[in-house]
């Protein structure tokens, strides 16, 4: 490689890294506890609990919804999801005049309609998650972090290109421990950087895709659900709605063999103003991450459509596990954490190398 070319790549590497390092360090530090969010929530929120009527009596979903809304009069329901290991239905609702992003989340004991204890989303973990997702700045913060993720990918590509001239005369694995701190850290930076490339690219690229979740879902709604949305002039009022329980059963008939995951109510981000969108997932390792909705007319309770997700929503769905590292048991999470720590060392050593070189240049 000609020295001019090396200098150009070096400049790309320096600047893409410098712009993003502070944010990437934040993402790595907050990401570390998030890898173990499930385990940490289990410890922080541990509480002995059993359903009121363990013998099997279950309220139907309309009764559960009524019980939840009775605790927050005036709220409009947005989502309903289902715990897999206890008879609990989670109802998300919001006051019509609430600021964006302000929701009421209630786990409800399906055997009695009483409140059940929270098992996920401890306030501390929610704080860390929000910081990691959007810096508390909403969509703008999310997209900004996506841009930082793109910077990371540029830094990785330029780093790989620069690896060649640096390693021309050094065998793989060399760390010149007897040389100056600068040389030693350069070798560590190169070695750790090159062995973590695959993981960093996968976590970085899927992270960027995740920052696009809001526009991706909005685009899906505007295109795939456009015809359904056009069927009515105004949104369906709360007292015009057909039975939710019957709607979910109708959806089950339309998608036999799939597992119920959540319901998006009319007017929420995942549905039209006039339909219950009932989402199911498959049961193979991959299809558990992929969702398919059946849309039920909220006025009549009739099946309006089954809408398989387009490729870009599937890409978003698969980006989530690949970014979180929560799809292969505790072993994978531990490796994820080790790689995260190594990435912090790479970022820190890169910053150190830049500072030392700048001091020398003066």
């Amino acid at each position, binding site marked *: 490689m000609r020295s001019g070319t090396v200098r150009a790549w070096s400049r790309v590497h320096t600047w893409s890294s410098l712009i993003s390092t502070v944010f990437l360090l934040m993402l790595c530090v907050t990401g570390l506890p998030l890898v173990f969010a499930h385990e940490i929530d289990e410890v922080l929120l541990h509480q002995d609990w059993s359903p009121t009527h363990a013998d099997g009596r279950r309220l139907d979903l309309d009764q559960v919804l009524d019980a939840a809304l009775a605790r927050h009069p005036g709220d409009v329901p947005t989502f309903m999801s289902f715990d897999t290991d206890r008879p609990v239905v989670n109802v998300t609702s919001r006051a019509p005049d609430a600021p964006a992003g302000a929701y009421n989340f209630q786990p409800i004991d399906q055997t009695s309609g009483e409140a059940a204890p929270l098992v996920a989303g401890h306030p501390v973990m929610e704080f860390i998650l929000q910081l990691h997702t959007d810096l508390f700045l909403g969509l703008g913060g999310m997209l900004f972090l996506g841009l930082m993720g793109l910077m990371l990918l540029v830094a990785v590509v330029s780093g790989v290109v620069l690896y060649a001239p640096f*390693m021309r*005369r050094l065998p*793989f*694995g060399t760390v010149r421990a007897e040389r100056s701190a600068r040389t030693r850290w350069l070798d560590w930076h190169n070695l750790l950087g090159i*062995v973590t490339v695959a993981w960093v690219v996968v976590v970085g690229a899927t992270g960027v895709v995740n920052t696009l979740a809001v526009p991706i879902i909005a685009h899906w709604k505007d295109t795939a659900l456009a015809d359904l949305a056009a069927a009515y002039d105004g949104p369906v009022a709360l007292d015009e709605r057909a039975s939710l329980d019957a709607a979910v059963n109708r959806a089950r008939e339309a998608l036999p063999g799939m597992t119920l995951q959540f319901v998006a109510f009319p007017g929420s981000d995942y549905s039209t103003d006039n339909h219950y969108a009932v989402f199911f997932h498959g049961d193979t390792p991959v299809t558990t991450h992929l969702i398919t909705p059946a849309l039920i007319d909220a006025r009549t309770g009739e099946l309006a459509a089954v809408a398989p997700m387009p490729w870009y929503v599937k890409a978003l769905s698969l980006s989530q596990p690949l970014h979180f590292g929560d799809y*292969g048991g505790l*072993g994978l999470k531990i*490796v994820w954490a080790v790689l995260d720590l190594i990435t912090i060392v790479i970022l820190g050593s890169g910053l150190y190398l830049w500072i030392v070189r700048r001091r020398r240049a003066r």
Partner: protein
Amino acid sequence: MSPRDQGLWRIFRLPLLIGVVSLIGLVGALLGDGLWDGLGAALLAGGLALATAAWARQRSGTRKT
């Protein structure tokens, strides 16, 4: 240490192997179940182990000379 410049293949063959093994682990754990979960973590960690082994070998090599 060889004074001769290495070609791209020599420079990148081990990093490439580590990258491919890591990717098989990452995707394998997503596509597979049960056994693949442990195997995926092992393959991903295997890349790090390979790098550690290469580092240890280089270190002992430079000490001897």
